[in-house]
């Protein structure tokens, strides 16, 4: 049975090559609030709600696009890493994939629920920022861990 909702196997490597540097740069950008001047642009935007000015449905805004670029890179590359076919994507791997996805959603929302209860105000912004990426991150960790466990147990046989 052909699975057509996954990327070809080679996208996994491309994904890792993009994900690792962009995740590191993303963290640095976030922690040190990097906003290099050459990435300042006037951009078209919708739902503009500036604290100091009026609310507008659409218009132009000034924005530094470094975080947008890194966010897009992280999301696309983690999608590649998460949803590229294994070398031999058979039905058992698909089952592990599904289980890992459910597990990742549970863990992600479990952590989010705890954050709702114990983290407030500005600190919660950090939760929201990380939560944009954590479902995929938890999935990637769990799925690869299960696959490597499988490979190890298969190597013991015969």
């Amino acid at each position, binding site marked *: *049975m052909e699975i057509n909702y996954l990327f070809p196997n080679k996208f996994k490597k491309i994904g890792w090559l993009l994900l690792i540097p962009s995740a590191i740069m993303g963290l640095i950008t976030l922690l040190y609030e990097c906003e290099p001047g050459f990435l300042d642009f006037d951009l078209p935007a919708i739902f503009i709600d500036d604290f100091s000015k009026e609310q507008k449905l659409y218009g132009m805004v000034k924005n530094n696009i470094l975080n947008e670029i890194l966010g897009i890179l992280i999301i696309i590359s983690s999608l590649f890493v998460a949803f590229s076919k*294994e070398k*031999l994507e*058979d*039905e*058992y*791997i698909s*089952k592990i994939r599904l289980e890992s996805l459910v597990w990742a959603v549970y863990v992600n929302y479990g952590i989010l629920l705890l954050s709702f209860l114990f983290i407030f105000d500005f600190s919660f912004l950090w939760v929201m920022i990380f939560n944009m990426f954590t479902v995929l991150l938890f999935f990637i960790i769990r799925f690869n861990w299960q696959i490597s466990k*499988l*490979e190890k*147990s*298969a190597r013991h*046989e*015969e």
Partner: protein
Amino acid sequence: MKNSIKVERAKKNITQANLAILAKVSRQTINAMELGKYVPSTVLALKLAQIFDVEISQIFTLEDSDWA
């Protein structure tokens, strides 16, 4: 569900790796089935029966726990 994949394999003298190639699945999947960790789809079960040239019920048998 119990299966006798390992026995059938021994009879035909096929390794896990070779069976995996014949059935077009990974070796881990064959291993997981033999260990009872994974119940294959009907398609894969039928493929295995064809490879071993036996009836499907000769490889796979239900257990009481399957009715629980």
